[in-house]
């Protein structure tokens, strides 16, 4: 009986909570009937659970309604969903409903805002380059600016003193430095509000709501793309920087929703294909669970195959993975594979 006694003793708390396995239900009562020690302990523990329950329903009369006292544990308590959701949405708006090409940006903005509500007191945490959290948001404010200006969604930021005719990358580097310097002089909350207001203006532009008006091509930051794709580029950069900030703050930023990720990858592959040019040794490229593309020359047989995880591919293109370190599945001509990886990493997109 010793084994039985020990086994029952171990289970007494589970018994008191009503958390036994059905099979155990049979072994406890007979033992309690014969073992005084266990019976005492069982009664003591059960008494605690009863006290946790509080006064019996009949005696509970906080506001006289018997229905609200002690519902059975299994009874589903229905409540008005709309009230709960409405209150939640008052605290944080949902990502705005926009056309599919702008939805990834809307989501990325919503996700970064959520992340930044964890940054209080940690704005000075180093993130990337020589930027802290505050400066990274200031950088995004500058990086969204060209598209905002193009769409007439500017929010009256101090104009840039950069002369006309400056090459786009030099102009861009100066502008981002300028904006960061300006923002450093303000509290982080104001920088977030400015970035957030500009993002909201972008998302309420007609080009965010309507695919047709987003079809015109414009050149921004050296890339000539339809406005729809520029929205994807904004989504990509916003997510990658949110990921940077998350790493800095020790919070795991989930990758964008599958459908958005697919949009981002299609665009990145197109840009990578263009960067490789029509004469590069052809490589059959795929992302896990996604389609395949032949990158490089289509005039010769495929030299190699390369498969990457979707998120890893984005991190590579975003400059967050050295080409030699990205986890990959590869077969065939190694130099052809290396060429693709190095070119992807050198897109220096962000």
């Amino acid at each position, binding site marked *: 009986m010793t084994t039985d006694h020990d086994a029952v003793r*171990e*289970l007494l*708390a*589970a018994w*008191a*909570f*009503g*958390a*036994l*396995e059905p099979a155990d239900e049979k072994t406890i009562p007979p033992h309690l009937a014969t073992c005084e020690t266990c019976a005492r302990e069982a009664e*003591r*523990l059960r008494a*605690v*659970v009863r*006290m*946790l*329950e*509080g*006064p019996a329903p009949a*005696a*509970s*009369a*906080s*506001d006289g309604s018997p*229905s*609200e006292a002690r*519902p059975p*544990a*299994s009874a*589903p*308590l*229905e*409540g008005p*969903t709309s*009230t*709960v*959701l409405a*209150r*939640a*949405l008052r*605290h*944080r*708006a*949902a*990502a705005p409903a926009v056309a599919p090409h702008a939805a990834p940006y*809307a*989501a*990325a903005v*919503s*996700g970064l805002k*959520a*992340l930044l*509500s*964890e940054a209080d007191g940690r704005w000075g945490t180093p993130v990337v380059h020589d930027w802290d959290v505050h400066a990274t948001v200031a950088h995004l404010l500058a990086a969204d600016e060209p598209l905002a200006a193009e769409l007439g969604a500017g929010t009256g930021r101090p104009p840039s003193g950069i002369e006309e005719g400056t090459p786009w990358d030099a102009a861009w580097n100066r502008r981002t430095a300028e904006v960061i310097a300006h923002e450093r002089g303000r509290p982080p909350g104001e920088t977030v509000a400015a970035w957030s207001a500009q993002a909201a203006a972008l998302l309420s532009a007609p080009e965010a709501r309507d695919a047709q008006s987003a079809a015109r091509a414009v050149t921004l930051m050296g890339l000539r793309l339809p406005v729809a794709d520029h929205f994807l580029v904004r989504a990509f950069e916003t997510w990658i920087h949110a990921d940077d900030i998350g790493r800095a703050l020790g*919070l*795991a*930023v*989930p*990758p964008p*929703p599958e459908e958005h990720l697919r949009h981002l990858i299609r665009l990145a592959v197109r840009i990578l294909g263009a960067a490789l040019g029509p004469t590069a040794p052809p490589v059959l490229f795929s992302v896990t669970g996604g389609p395949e593309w032949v990158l490089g020359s289509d005039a010769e047989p495929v030299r190699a195959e390369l498969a990457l995880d979707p998120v890893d591919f984005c991190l590579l293109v975003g400059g967050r993975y050295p080409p030699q370190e990205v986890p990959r599945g590869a077969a065939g001509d190694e130099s052809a594979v290396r060429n693709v990886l190095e070119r992807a990493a050198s897109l220096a997109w962000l």
Partner: protein
Amino acid sequence: MVPVEQAGVGADAELHRRLVYGDESALAEVYTAYGGLVRRVAVRVTRSAAAAEDVAQEVFAQLWSRPYAFDPRRGSLRTWLSLLAHRRAVDWVRSEARHRKAARADDSALHAIPEPGPGPDETVVDRERSLLLHSALAELPQPQREVVHLAYFAGRTYRQAAVELGIPEGTAKTRLRTALRTLAESLADPPDPALERGA
């Protein structure tokens, strides 16, 4: 068992991802799945449907507006919501007790020694003892609190709780036991922070 567990972790991570990216349909799904549990926990502590409603609103508003407070790598959404609902419900009762005490502060009748025997005074004692226990429960180390929540509020057996938490069955039993003994001791030696603070 293992695939179910993994599916649970995957489903939580997917919901979390959608919450982070501002997809309100994910919040509606979480509410459909766990609204009942959250209210059940809250009503057990507060004894009031109106208070439980308020606690539930607060809990889901917090999940939605601060999605990064929940980390799917560190535990299940079910347990996280249950713990949060419990803590909020205990806070609600504490603040209600403070108000009640303040309102009755100059009611001299209340300072009379309560009559023994059943009656409203006994109910008050029961309620205070229940609150004391719930306060002690809210202070337990998280690993113990998680098992208690699954067993007591979510109606899991100790074996199901062990699977959900990814711990051995024996550990689940031990944690339940340690938790319940600590609660029993808190009655024997009541520091009663809730009521002290109300003074």
